[in-house]
């Protein structure tokens, strides 16, 4: 066991856990944020996607000991900073989720995509989102929702647009 300090959704957190424990289980069972999901445990499904210093990572393959001190983690609970992110709003408008279990990870990947690529093509979306599986098959709506969010953010009408 060892003590680790990290910042999750702008909150400083101290945990005392097995250094091998993946960030996924730290966030879920020690920080208490259940929105990040377990799907495969080998970075094949993307359900555990969170942001590490703004970059999307698979939390199930990220041992807590591999993180730098005070690493900044953002999860689905913090991605909208208290409001709905334009991506989340677009997910509602397009009624993307079916079971919704993978959607936290999908949304975290999509938010990261729009940060680097504000006007993504379908090919950009495919490249950025292909690490996230959806067994319910919501891919067509995910594409539409990302385009919608991109439009909203360009128009500057939504919270999260500047992020």
């Amino acid at each position, binding site marked *: 066991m060892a003590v680790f300090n990290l910042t999750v959704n702008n909150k400083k957190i101290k945990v005392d856990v097995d250094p091998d424990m993946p960030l996924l289980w730290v966030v879920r069972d020690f920080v208490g944020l259940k929105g990040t999901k377990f799907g495969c445990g080998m970075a094949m499904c993307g359900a555990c996607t969170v942001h590490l210093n703004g970059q999307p990572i698979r939390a199930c393959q990220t041992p807590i000991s591999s993180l730098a001190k005070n690493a900044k983690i953002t999860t689905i609970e913090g991605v909208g900073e208290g409001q709905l992110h334009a991506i989340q709003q677009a997910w509602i408008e397009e009624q993307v989720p079916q*079971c919704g*279990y993978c959607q936290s990870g999908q949304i975290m990947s999509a938010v990261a995509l729009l940060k680097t690529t504000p006007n993504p093509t379908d090919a950009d979306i495919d490249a950025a989102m292909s690490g996230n599986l959806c*067994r319910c098959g919501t891919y067509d709506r995910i594409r539409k929702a990302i385009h919608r969010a991109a439009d909203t953010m360009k128009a500057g009408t939504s919270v999260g647009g500047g992020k």
Partner: protein
Amino acid sequence: MKNTSRRDFLKTTSLTGFGFALGVSSFAKDAPLKKLTPAVLSLEINPFIIIDTAGNITLVNPRPDMGQGSTQAVPSLLAEELEVSLDKVNIIQSDGKGKYGNQTSGGSSSVRGLWQPLRKAGAAAREMLTETAAKRWNVSSTECFAQDGKIIHRPSGKSLTYGELADDASKLEVPKNPKLKDPKDFKIIGKYNKRIDVPERVTGKAVYGLDVDVPGMVYASILHSPMVHGKIASIDDTDTKKIAGVLQVVKTERPMPHRTSEAVAVIATNWWAALKGKKALKVQWDNGNYDKTLSTEKYFAQTYEAAKKDGINFEEKGDFTAKFTSAKQKIETNYETPFLAHAPIEPENAIVHVKDDGSIEIWAPVQGPDWALRDVCGYMKVKPEQVKINVTLLGGAFGRKAYHDFLLEACHLSKELKKPVKVIWTREDDITQGPYRPGMLSHMQGFVENGKITGFHHHAIGESIVGQVFKGLKEDEADPWLSEEISTGNNKYNFATASKISWTNVKTDIPIVWWRSVYASNFGWGQECFIDELAHLAGKDPLQARLEILEDERFKKVLETLAEKAHWNEKLPAGKAKGIAVFKSFDSISAACVTVAKQENGAKIEKVVSVIDCGYYVNPDNVKAQTEGNIIMGLTSAIKDGITFTNGVCDQTNFHQFNLMRINEAPAIEIHIVDSGSNPGGVGEPGLPPIAPALGNAIFALTGKRIRKLPFDISNLA
């Protein structure tokens, strides 16, 4: 849902013993109940409708939501007749108790099964409230009407809320035959409405089984036999016990419906430690003879052998064999479909607390709390009133979470450990252990006469779900589930000269169960590809050839709509082709047209147009969403990995070997609904069966190569 009132509501209803709302984990951590005093009286107008004197309305959803939209679709049936808006009511999930009737999400049965009963429940409550108001005003009930949670007296305009009427209304006898609304007056049913549960699913707030915490619980990771049914020879847990957080290692069991397997559970203070402990276990398995006898290769070899012999007749018209023997233009061939894992992204999990007084409380993502209750009572030897089931949201299920091995594992462990136990399966457990969709073989024979398909025989071969899971198939009996899947009564093809549907049961020890659309997902492949083959043999356009032998107007309308929407009759540029298929399952008819384009040595799926006639439906957008999902799952089943067993062990372990379709492979999709005004059919499954055969038929149109075995490598068709 009114989120602000939900917590108050939960406090109130928990005292009066009603079901369970979705915010389970926050509730579990709530203040001690004895400190709370209900300020209002909750009244059960009937099992599905609870109205309290403060005016809060609660509808009970008796169908767990696994992504199919039952949280909206089912309460809509009540709300429509009750004249309330879904965004102004609380919705809770039923707990499995008998008063709610059938509560299993399966067989695409939610709307089609509850269409009458729940509308009647809503209408009955409306009549009771109306009568109460009329009495209070001393007017005729015909002068009163219900609107937006109130009864209004038309002549005077005065009104009373349902909350003000609930107490007296609940004392009335429930009318047996209340008057249902005319469909033309529907305000909710058939209209686009956003699903009320979507916001919580995009903010991480939705509570799935995996997300529930119960005070005092321990976690279990279970080592299952690689041979599925192997026996434990020895356990060395020395390394496991050194891991921080591991509490103990116990020999345990995996109770499947038809047999129980041995297993070893690692119990820990957190699941990661339990998993790490499981990986450190050294268990020797006595695998019996499974390493020599059990493989999918051997299983399929048996099915191909069976195809050479007569099966058990399910139905026959004319003397098919004689007619086939003498036919001049005929084809005989086999179509194969693999075993498949359901692979919901939320793995199997359950929390069970067997308490000191023998009562049992459960928190689990199960498709049917009623079936779960039955299974728990049977396994634990307890009475239904001793069991409380809290159904969480399901992170996908597709049939898997109506098979309760994971739940009974948690029951077994909690009884032994005397504390709440949370079992979480790994993806490897999910993929290597089954149960799976059975692999099946369709042996097909058919002939054409004068340019028309007039003879057809579908010999369905493989392991039976009824037989294996329920031990309910006699040796001399054809699987009765074929009737709703491949009988001519179901597919509505009229083969003028002769037809036959037959069955041979080839057994296997690989655990099987229903998978989205059940056998239709297997036999749709054989039926619809073979019809395509016969159409080509007859020199006919595949769509025209079907219309010629279909006698059902709804089928024809679906195909004609598909032809129009998919521009079937327009010629495509070189290097592109289309294929179609149509299939009826769960009382709905669905047809699909797949467009493929040549790409290097293979093909790319460019577009899928799907048409569905599901009769009356609640939300057209959800019908489309389910059909979109069926398209992706159907394509995945055709071109991604199947499940294979070699030397007794599953060859696939995780998503790197059991690949699912990803967004970069997903085609453009277009869905069209045919409004037939028929009784509701299913929506969650019927879109799937035509997808794989439409793709296979498109590949034939593109390359001249007939694919007969799934899955196939679409990137290499050489």
